[in-house]
């Protein structure tokens, strides 16, 4: 123990939020220490799966099943997990957690510098006041302390740096952003769009708004349409901490990064009412160190940030740091995922595409937009991500009988066009959906393991049925045949949009953070990752974390300069 170094600010975590915190803080002149529990990773050089040819991928791309079952049973459920990306992910065996009986939770975690910003699906959608006012309107959860007007300029600020491609459509509840030229819908998606938009007054389809550049800018390249972004992109066409915020922060000369550094807890000094130190365990040597700074930005991810706070007990905060309200660990949310409608789109057998577009289409929420719909038996709503493509040889070969020349020649041609719509449903905030620390079980660092106790409720299950029914209806309107659907049954966490557990609010007795992402009771503590979320909306959350982080840093540095922190 010992070795103390002075910094102006400490940022815990290097993912989407941590990267933004480091960039903003260093650019405002602060000396920043970034602590990352994962391994070092060099942009480009360590993307060993990037552009890997099919013939170089082990086992023809089949999963090494024994290894995954033993060491990656949770991580391997992620769509982004395979042998080209495994080196980015957490090893489940070495990083255990528990759940309440019969309440599974998928905690997907990266284990490298850059975190899940390397692995995210890059979809970018602004929230609107339909989202920020939702809790107040129907009484689930507490009111957000902010509205769209508070965050709108910060959305613009981060989008300009991120590089978001998309199409401006003027949807009132899905605001347009600062867009680079949109990616193109394919010929079948355009037909589906026409079919859907001409059949419904309130349903629209647009190309996915995605943090993948269609124009080179700021030293980052434009997308070259190789396809699997999650393997890493050495030209930095998609936004990650590695491609974007960390280089910007490094350029200031004021960023120090320590990887393999597990934050165990934060020390609280009751006399100053401030965090006085950050306790760190070196994951290689197991040596313990304490680092000190005026400001602490907790950006370790929804669950990991709250784990650190719950583990930081003191006489003042026996239930966890900044947890006077008792809300810490509660109101854990995700999005329902996996409910999908699909169908075959006939009439385009002579049409195909070239390039592997890392993006799909989006259908914004249409349920309960102007008040509660009378024919809908759930609150709030959902949106769809989807797309059209032709089935490939892998999917078709098992459906074509026989063998020999005719069989081989039949696989020269792609299969039918399919179109699918996958719903993302809002998850109501609920005090009983929570995470705690299981003091009886510790990890290899001696830190109490996270215990999840969360399940989707009646509202989410009703919504899933509607996602399937309406998805089928829209595919029929789009001209699809053989339309079907499946109701997703994935547990919370599987959407990898976990949110809440240290929510924002105006009332310190009901919330952990104020409207600036600052802990009500600990002025030098800011939490700007998904933990801060007071509700979940139905749109992908990352761009909101980025905007909130930049906004929080602006406030924190102003307060620091004014001598208030």
């Amino acid at each position, binding site marked *: 123990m010992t070795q103390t170094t002075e910094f102006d600010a400490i940022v815990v975590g290097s993912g989407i939020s941590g990267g933004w915190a480091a960039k903003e803080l260093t650019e405002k002149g602060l000396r920043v220490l970034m602590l990352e529990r994962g391994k070092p990773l060099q942009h480009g050089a360590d993307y060993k799966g990037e552009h890997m040819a*099919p013939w170089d991928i082990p086992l023809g791309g089949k999963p090494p099943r024994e290894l995954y079952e033993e060491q990656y049973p949770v991580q391997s459920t992620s769509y982004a997990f395979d042998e080209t990306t495994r080196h980015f992910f957490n090893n489940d065996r070495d990083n255990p957690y528990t759940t309440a009986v019969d309440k599974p939770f998928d905690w997907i975690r990266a284990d490298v510098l850059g975190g899940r910003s390397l692995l995210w699906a890059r979809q970018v959608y602004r929230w609107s006041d339909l989202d920020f006012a939702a809790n107040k309107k129907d009484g689930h959860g507490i009111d957000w302390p902010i509205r769209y007007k508070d965050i709108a300029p910060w959305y613009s600020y981060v989008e300009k740096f991120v590089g978001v491609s998309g199409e401006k459509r003027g949807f009132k509840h899905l605001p347009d952003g600062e867009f680079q030229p949109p990616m193109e819908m394919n010929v079948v998606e355009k037909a589906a769009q026409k079919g859907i938009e001409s059949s419904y007054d309130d349903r629209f389809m647009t190309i996915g708004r995605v943090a993948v550049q269609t124009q080179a800018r700021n030293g980052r390249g434009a997308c070259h349409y190789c396809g699997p972004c999650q393997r890493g992109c050495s030209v930095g066409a998609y936004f990650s901490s590695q491609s974007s915020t960390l280089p910007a922060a490094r350029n200031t000369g004021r960023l120090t990064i320590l990887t393999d550094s597990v934050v165990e807890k934060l020390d609280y000094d009751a006399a100053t009412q401030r965090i006085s130190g950050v306790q760190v365990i070196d994951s290689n040597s197991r040596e313990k160190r304490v680092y000190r700074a005026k400001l602490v930005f907790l950006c370790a991810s929804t669950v990991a940030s709250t784990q650190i706070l719950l583990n930081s007990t003191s006489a003042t905060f026996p239930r966890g740091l900044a947890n006077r309200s008792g809300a810490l660990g509660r109101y854990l949310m995700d999005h329902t995922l996996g409910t999908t409608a699909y169908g075959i789109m006939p009439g385009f057998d002579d049409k195909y595409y070239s390039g592997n577009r890392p993006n799909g289409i989006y259908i914004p929420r249409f349920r309960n937009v102007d008040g509660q719909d009378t024919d809908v038996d759930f609150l709030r709503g959902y949106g769809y991500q989807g797309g059209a493509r032709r089935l490939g040889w892998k999917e078709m070969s098992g459906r074509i009988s026989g*063998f020999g020349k005719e069989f081989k020649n039949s696989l*020269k041609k792609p299969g039918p066009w399919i179109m699918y719509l996958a719903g993302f449903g809002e998850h109501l905030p609920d005090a009983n959906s929570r995470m705690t620390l299981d003091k009886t079980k510790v990890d290899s660092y001696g830190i109490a393991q996270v215990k999840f106790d969360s399940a989707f409720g009646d509202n989410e299950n009703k919504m899933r049925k509607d996602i399937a029914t309406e998805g089928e209806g829209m595919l029929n309107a789009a001209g699809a045949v053989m339309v079907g659907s499946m109701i997703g049954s994935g547990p919370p966490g599987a959407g990898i949009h976990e949110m809440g557990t240290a929510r924002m609010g105006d009332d310190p007795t009901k919330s952990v953070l104020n409207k600036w992402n600052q802990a009500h009771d600990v002025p030098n503590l800011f939490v700007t990752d998904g933990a801060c979320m007071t509700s979940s909306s139905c749109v992908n959350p990352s761009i909101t974390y980025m905007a909130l982080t930049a906004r929080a840093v602006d406030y924190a540095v102003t307060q620091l300069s004014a001598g208030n922190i």
Partner: protein
Amino acid sequence: MVNRRELIKWASVALGTGLSASLQQALAAGVDSTGKHDFFTVEQATMVSVISELIIPTTDTPGAIAAGVPDFIEAMVADWYTAGEREIFMMGLAQLDKHCLTQYKTVFSHCDAVQQSSALSWSETQSKHYRGADLLGSMGSDAPFFTKIKELTVLGYYTSKIGATQELRYNPMPMAYNGDVNFSDLGRQWSY
């Protein structure tokens, strides 16, 4: 010293007097073997080579053997298959030989091309009860022998350099997305 791969090549050619010309040629040309696997006996390896080439033969593009599929199958059966899957596969090979002994009074590898093709068709009929691939094209662990060897042949072939670049189209750096292309201008599907 003659390595095992050479032995299989030799055995295939020596045995295969009744084989089709293209199959004989493919077997004689052999493949670049890593020599890592010796799970199959020479007889079994020969059978697997012949079957893979029957499933994806040499046409205007190279077939399964030239693409290294027999090695791929051996590696998957030896290292990737579960014990249960392996048993189904090995039993399937044995049953195919047994079928040939009954029908043609000789083992599969000694049959002529017409007999081998008929025998493989028989094997396919034995798999007709199977429900088939899931949505993503993966076969279940309990899939019967023919389904299994066809799946491995297809996977090995279309993920090989020959399969991906000569039979299908492969372009790791397309540089653009065009969502309205005439298939006739491409003629072959993308390998991804």
